[in-house]
């Protein structure tokens, strides 16, 4: 809502506050002023000029040489390029020394050999948006509607010496979508009275009923309809003040009839519509639900097909307007119109909202109906229109109105006790201060038995319950007056749940291990949705996605994390190691999805880079595996790994991660073709179901006594077929090792040329230990022999 402060003064005394200060007061009281716009910004030294002569420039087709009376008896020659320039016009002249928005300074100039003492201006050159400039002047200079005294200062003549407040209205404050509504708000803030427009006009002897009949067949969607008939109107340009007020309010002037309806829309917040009486052709207005498939061409020249739940205004047979949204082209007011039917109505908000949404058509009218108009302004707005049409279009208003009225216009009563207000706020506001605020708001209030009985004006549809009154009192009393206290609830322990605490531990571990935390989008493309998913299900698609790229819920974190890696490598950041925790979305039993919190890791490039001491290590499977093992250890869990395959991963370098034998994750090197597709070098990925890890209860930590006895180490080097996994051999060792074997660790792997084809050498370090005593060589030898025997029996060869 754009509020001209100059216009606002018609209704309320703004105490000559500077607009910025007024805006600040309005903001602090609850309606946010988004911007304070000075309409005269950048303008200086503009005067009214009168074109006494206008001739073609001999050297240029498109230029005219004008002699312009600029006041004080001076006639200046000005060259003008506008197509609509003509002798006898009053125009806006920027004389040498004048300033226009954007820092433009006007100087005396020569155009194709002819002197030009300034410039004749269009409205755009004065900083008015093209969409607000009347169509007839959109392509040229602005011609003042009435002859004005040459030399007059343009800023005041055009009401550009004005400041506009741009209000950012919340949906509850529909009352402030009108100048009167804003006046009531400002009046309450500044403790000033509001003066309403005085409506007075002469009526013709003939009655409106003599020319028009009215029928409303949809009283629920349209409980109040007022029609007035104005005869012998002269359709023409509106006077300057009206055009300027509309432009200041962000509305384009058309002609006096349309402008009057828009003016009252802005003034009262009540949408009006004007029909050309003769085009109706029937002398009848019938409001009814549309017939399914019925068609109407609206004012924007669009043919629209209607549905039965939409409300239309008809001439008894055919639709002539889409009620409350937009008029029909067939009944539009034109220059030839002589008799006008003015509609002022109350349409139910849900009906309008639906229709407006169906047709994707929002207008100043529909947005007000959607939020609810004031039932008590429908009839006054129609009267105000009649008045202005008689004044500005020389119309003859027929006596009376056609009215269909089943609307409840009763004021709502809200009862609330001062104690309630104070206890909700934590304040001690005195009763008389509350009464004062309510009277400033023009809420009729009676204080009876420690109870405020408040009659809420119908313009304030948002005040419905006690809490709404609490807010009204508080906002005008001042939120700064509310003290700062803390809740007096019983002390609560608060704190993280075990799950949340473990998630933080996991995150801190991963960061300590050298990974950067990433965040990616949950929405992805069909193709990426199930790639790398551990247990892919049917995908979940949005009803109305914004793009195919973001249309499906992800089932794996990896595709977007890999995209992040590619993003980095494309920017020459060759090494990166990222992790993310986040939800994947699977189809579940419930109507809601099965959301699982996952953890994923991606890494590419160098893991260690400390070259000057000869340390350099590229990422590999085992770097990632080590992190996963470390994480499990931190969480008190034991994971195992089983060779596996997954699309997109290297078939020889992929393993599933198991917890208690159940698959909970995957780890592997990205498949070379996948790497190529993503423009990545050797890349390792890992994803696991984090929720499974975090929901698992861990055992209590019990200290094991540190033994006084030493451990004894023995190494064993084996030659094996290279398809045998270390894990298998370790199993054999552990099984044969008995209770003295404390620990088994791989310490060497050799697969080079010195081995026979298909063989590898694997060396283990074994540690023996007895918590009760120092082991003797004999005891260790016996245990070790058993292991060697088991190993040779399993096909391993001692090296």
């Amino acid at each position, binding site marked *: 809502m754009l509020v001209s402060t100059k216009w606002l003064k018609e209704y309320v005394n703004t105490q000559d506050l500077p607009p910025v200060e007024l805006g600040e007061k309005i903001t602090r009281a*609850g309606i*946010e002023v988004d911007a304070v716009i000075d309409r005269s910004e950048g303008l200086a030294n503009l005067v009214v000029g009168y074109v006494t002569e206008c001739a073609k420039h001999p050297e240029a087709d498109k230029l005219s040489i004008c002699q312009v009376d600029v006041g004080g008896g001076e006639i200046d020659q000005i060259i003008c390029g506008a197509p609509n320039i003509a002798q006898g016009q009053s125009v806006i002249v920027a004389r040498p020394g004048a300033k226009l928005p954007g820092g433009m300074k006007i100087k005396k100039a020569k155009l194709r050999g002819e002197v030009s003492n300034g410039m004749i201006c269009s409205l755009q050159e004065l900083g008015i948006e093209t969409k607000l400039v009347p169509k007839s002047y959109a392509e040229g200079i602005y011609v003042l509607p009435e002859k004005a005294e040459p030399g007059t200062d343009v800023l005041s003549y055009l009401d550009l010496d004005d400041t506009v407040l741009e209000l950012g209205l*919340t*949906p509850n404050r529909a009352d402030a979508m009108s100048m009167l509504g804003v006046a009531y708000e400002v009046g309450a803030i500044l403790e000033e009275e509001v003066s309403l427009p005085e409506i007075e006009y002469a009526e013709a002897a003939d009655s409106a009923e003599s020319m028009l009949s009215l029928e409303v067949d949809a009283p629920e969607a349209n409980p109040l309809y007022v029609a007035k008939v104005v005869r012998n109107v002269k359709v023409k340009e509106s006077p300057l003040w009206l055009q300027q007020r509309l432009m200041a309010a962000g509305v384009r002037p058309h002609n006096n009839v349309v402008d009057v309806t828009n003016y009252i829309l802005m003034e009262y917040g009540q949408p009006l519509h004007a029909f050309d009486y003769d085009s109706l052709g029937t002398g009848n207005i019938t409001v009814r639900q549309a017939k399914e498939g019925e068609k109407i061409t609206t004012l924007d020249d669009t043919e629209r097909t209607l549905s039965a739940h939409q409300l239309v205004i008809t001439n008894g047979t055919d639709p002539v307007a889409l009620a409350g949204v937009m008029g029909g082209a067939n009944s539009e007011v034109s220059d030839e119109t002589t008799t006008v039917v003015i509609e002022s109505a109350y349409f139910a908000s*849900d009906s309008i*909202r639906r229709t407006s949404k169906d047709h994707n058509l929002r207008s100043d009218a529909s947005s007000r109906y*959607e*939020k609810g108009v004031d039932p008590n302004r429908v009839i006054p707005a129609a009267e105000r229109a009649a008045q202005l049409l008689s004044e500005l279009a020389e119309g003859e208003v027929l006596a009376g109105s056609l009215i269909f009225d089943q609307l409840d216009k009763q004021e709502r009563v809200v009862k609330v006790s001062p104690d309630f207000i104070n206890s*909700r*706020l*934590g*304040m001690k506001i005195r009763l008389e201060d509350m009464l004062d605020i309510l009277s400033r708001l023009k809420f009729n209030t009676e204080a009876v038995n420690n109870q405020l009985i408040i009659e809420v004006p119908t313009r304030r549809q948002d005040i419905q*319950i006690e*809490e709404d009154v*609490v*807010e009204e009192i*508080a906002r005008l009393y001042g*939120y*700064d007056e*509310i*003290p*700062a*206290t*803390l*809740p*007096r609830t019983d*002390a609560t322990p*608060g704190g993280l749940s075990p799950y*949340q605490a473990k998630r*933080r531990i996991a995150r801190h571990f991963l*960061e300590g*291990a*050298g990974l*950067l*935390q990433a*965040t*990616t*989008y*949950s*929405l992805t493309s069909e193709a990426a949705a199930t790639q790398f998913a551990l247990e892919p299900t049917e995908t*979940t698609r*949005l*009803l*109305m996605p*914004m793009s195919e790229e*973001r249309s499906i*819920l992800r089932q794996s974190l990896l595709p977007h*994390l890999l995209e992040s890696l590619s*993003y*980095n490598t494309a*920017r020459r*950041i060759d090494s*990166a190691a990222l*992790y993310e925790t986040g939800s994947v979305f699977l189809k579940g039993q419930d*109507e*809601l*999805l099965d*959301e699982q919190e996952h953890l994923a890791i991606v890494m590419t490039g160098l893991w*260690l880079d400390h070259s000057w001491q000869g*340390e350099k290590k590229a990422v590999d499977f085992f770097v990632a595996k080590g992190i996963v093992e470390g994480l499990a250890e931190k969480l008190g869990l034991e994971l195992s790994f089983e060779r596996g395959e997954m699309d997109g991963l290297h078939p020889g370098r992929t393993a599933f991660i198991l917890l208690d034998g159940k698959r909970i994750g995957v780890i592997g090197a990205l498949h070379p073709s996948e790497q190529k597709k993503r423009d990545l070098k050797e890349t390792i990925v890992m994803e696991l179901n984090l929720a499974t890890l975090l929901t698992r209860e861990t055992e209590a930590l019990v200290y094991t006594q540190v033994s006084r006895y030493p451990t004894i180490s023995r190494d064993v080097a084996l030659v094996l077929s290279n398809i045998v996994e270390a894990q298998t051999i370790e199993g054999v060792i552990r099984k044969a090792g008995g209770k003295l074997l404390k620990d088994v660790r791989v310490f060497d792997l050799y697969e080079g040329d010195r081995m026979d084809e298909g063989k590898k050498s694997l060396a283990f370090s074994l540690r023996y230990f007895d918590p009760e005593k120092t082991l003797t060589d004999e005891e260790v030898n016996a245990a070790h022999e058993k292991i060697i025997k088991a190993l040779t029996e399993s096909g391993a060869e001692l090296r």
Partner: protein
Amino acid sequence: MEARLQELKNEALEKIQAAQTVKELTDVRVAYLGKKGPITDVLKGMGKLPAEERPKMGALANEVRAEVTESLEVRMVLLEEQAINEKLQSETIDISLPGRPAKTGNPHPLTRVVEEIEDLFLSMGYEIAEGPEVEKDYYNFEALNLPKGHPARDMQDSFYITEDILLRTHTSPVQARTMEAKGGEPIKIICPGKVYRRDNDDATHSHQFTQIEGLVVGEDIRMSDLKGTLSVFAKKMFGEDREIRLRPSFFPFTEPSVEMDISCFKCGGSGCNVCKKTGWIEILGAGMVHPNVLEMAGYDSKRLTGFAFGMGPERIAMLKYGIEDIRHFYTNDVRFLTQFQRTEL
């Protein structure tokens, strides 16, 4: 014999002083004090002396021996120290060379902000509540006083999956679920999480973003309690000298509703580009829980009242760190992420 001993002593002491290395000194020791050394030889000859002279001569020999030994030890300490110094000298490194980098990562800036807020409220006795990102229309809207057809819940603005299921547009459904689950008991929670809205991604909009909301329900919870809580939050998060101001606003699930501004942490209130010359920065929305919301969750709104607040960690991080484009949070540029390593304490 006495003369011989004196001579040997002087000779030994001279050689000790002349020794320049530990090795040379060790040679002197072996030469004079060893079993085959001259002093031993002299002592061996003691047998030939008359018995009454033996003790005197023995004492003298021991004296000489002791003197030589002491001198040797003193010299040895010196030479050893010298040797160590020479060795250390030769082991000098260029301490200006770079150290081996400790491999370390860091949290995402949003996590950093969220965790800071979480910790603050955890210390005030709050719990953290979480809920699904794919939510029922009921919890996302209806239970929050946004019935079907309410203008603030346009299909255009939300990602629906079916008529009744959508990606949550705020974390408020977690509040609705918690209230329902608590069955009328007092509540003190904060709800962090991802939320989604049908926005085109640009420098200031993101179809996915983060929210943290808080909810306190109890007997006689007042608006002043909200103001006090938010004031503690603002000071902890943005600095002790921050002031807050509340402005009336509107949210369907609270009444009264407010927006909270903090005095600008960059200019302190005099006006700058961060606060758009106003001296104030809008940080969050809040209000007293609407009685409809309480009643719908099974609370007696006459007996229990509450307050709620909600804020966007993206906005806070952008303000706090001066980040200019919201898309940075989701691109994962390593050059961006690694900047959030160090502490600010």
